[in-house]
């Protein structure tokens, strides 16, 4: 990898894309969100760089969440989810670490913190980690997650969603986000999705369904691209 592959210009977040905080009705945000605005700082080398060789620390070989072992298939609608990780110039981010976690088909996480009275699936842990290929592509085989009520006082139902964590080539391009499903009636009521003010930005958090002709007829198909911050100050040499 040479410098031409790496973004070194980080503009501030465009308006309306970052969630507005704290979020009305999401009580924890009122005790956790800093009250002071964050300080702008120049992008020094520490911010522009990031770990490039993380796969030794974080093994990136978990792409199949739906089948832990031969014959042990998770309950739910099998789903193939794939897409690309891009930078703000639309160039593929190669070698990015993509982590994904989600609830099972009953909307329960395999996590001791999730104490909700919904069934656990012995064949579903619900997390994976892969590295993007030369075209910035990632792919997971999983099941469609269920909805769940948020464990806060004045609850609401979170629509089915997938959590994503992406470690790109710089520490400023680090991104944690969520992905939603098109047409779900709960999307409209989700306080987390609607914390993002810009409607087009919210729309970009929703995956696109792919018909069986494109992904096969044994599982649902979805595609979802994610854009990390960062541009190239140096024009690309053809």
């Amino acid at each position: 990898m040479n410098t031409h592959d790496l973004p070194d210009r980080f503009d501030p977040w465009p308006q309306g894309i970052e969630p507005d905080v704290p979020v009305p009705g999401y009580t924890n945000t009122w005790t956790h969100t800093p009250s002071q605005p964050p300080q702008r700082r120049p992008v020094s080398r520490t911010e522009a760089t990031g770990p490039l060789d993380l796969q030794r620390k974080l093994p990136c070989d978990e792409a199949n969440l739906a089948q832990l072992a031969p014959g042990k298939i998770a309950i739910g609608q099998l789903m193939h989810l794939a897409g690309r990780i891009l930078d703000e110039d639309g160039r593929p981010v190669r070698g990015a670490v993509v982590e994904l976690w989600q609830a099972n088909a009953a909307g329960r996480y395999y996590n001791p913190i999730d104490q909700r009275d919904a069934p656990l699936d012995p064949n579903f842990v619900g997390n994976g980690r892969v590295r993007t290929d030369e075209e910035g592509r990632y792919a997971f085989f999983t099941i469609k997650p269920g909805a769940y009520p948020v464990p806060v006082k004045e609850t609401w139902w979170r629509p089915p969603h997938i959590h994503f964590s992406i470690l790109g080539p710089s520490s400023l391009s680090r991104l944690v986000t969520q992905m939603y499903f098109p047409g779900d009636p709960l999307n409209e009521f989700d306080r987390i999705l609607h914390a993002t003010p810009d409607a087009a930005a919210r729309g970009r958090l929703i995956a696109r369904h792919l018909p069986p002709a494109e992904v096969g007829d044994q599982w649902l198909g979805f595609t979802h691209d994610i854009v990390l911050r960062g541009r190239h100050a140096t024009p690309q040499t053809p």
Partner: protein
Amino acid sequence: MPADAPLPPTSQETIGPFFPRTLFREGDNDLTRVASDAAPTGRGEAILLRGQVTREGGFPCLNMILEAWQADAGGRFDHPLDPERHLADPDFLGWGRAWTDEDGQFEFRTVLPGGYTDGTGRRAPHVNLTAMGAGLMRRVLTTAFFPDFPAENLTDPVLALLPEHLRGRLVAHPDGEAEGLRVFRFDIRLRGSVDEETPFFED
């Protein structure tokens, strides 16, 4: 789309309370090893960087995810944007991830970083930290400096952005020794009064 029009970045959203413990492995919070089965680097002084994450009222935050990124003991990064990459420590990763326990406590094992000079000026030795968790829709970013370098801290171009009375909040405190290493404490207050709250930076 015109050639210069950038793609808008994907919005960040909260990491939530359920970031899987199954994605953690022993040694993820150890920056001194490039892999869990690799030997730690022999360069620089190994240290422990510890702290507590609290929210409004001083209550501890459980299951916050923290990530650290820093230069090696010589102030270099194993990254193409560092002109001295060829001199970077091949046995030092510079990245680690920790999560807080019931008492909001986290710990990183790392080496005392070196400073460097770039387009922004002379950077004092520092560790960039980011914290994510339930209740945080956007991650927060801050930087830990070290009391060993008072002269360097005085001229650091990032630390200088803060009002003088807040700069000390970004300098870790010596906190004894453990496992034969010097311990530095860097507590993070997410929300509080202006004087309580940790200064954070835009991402």
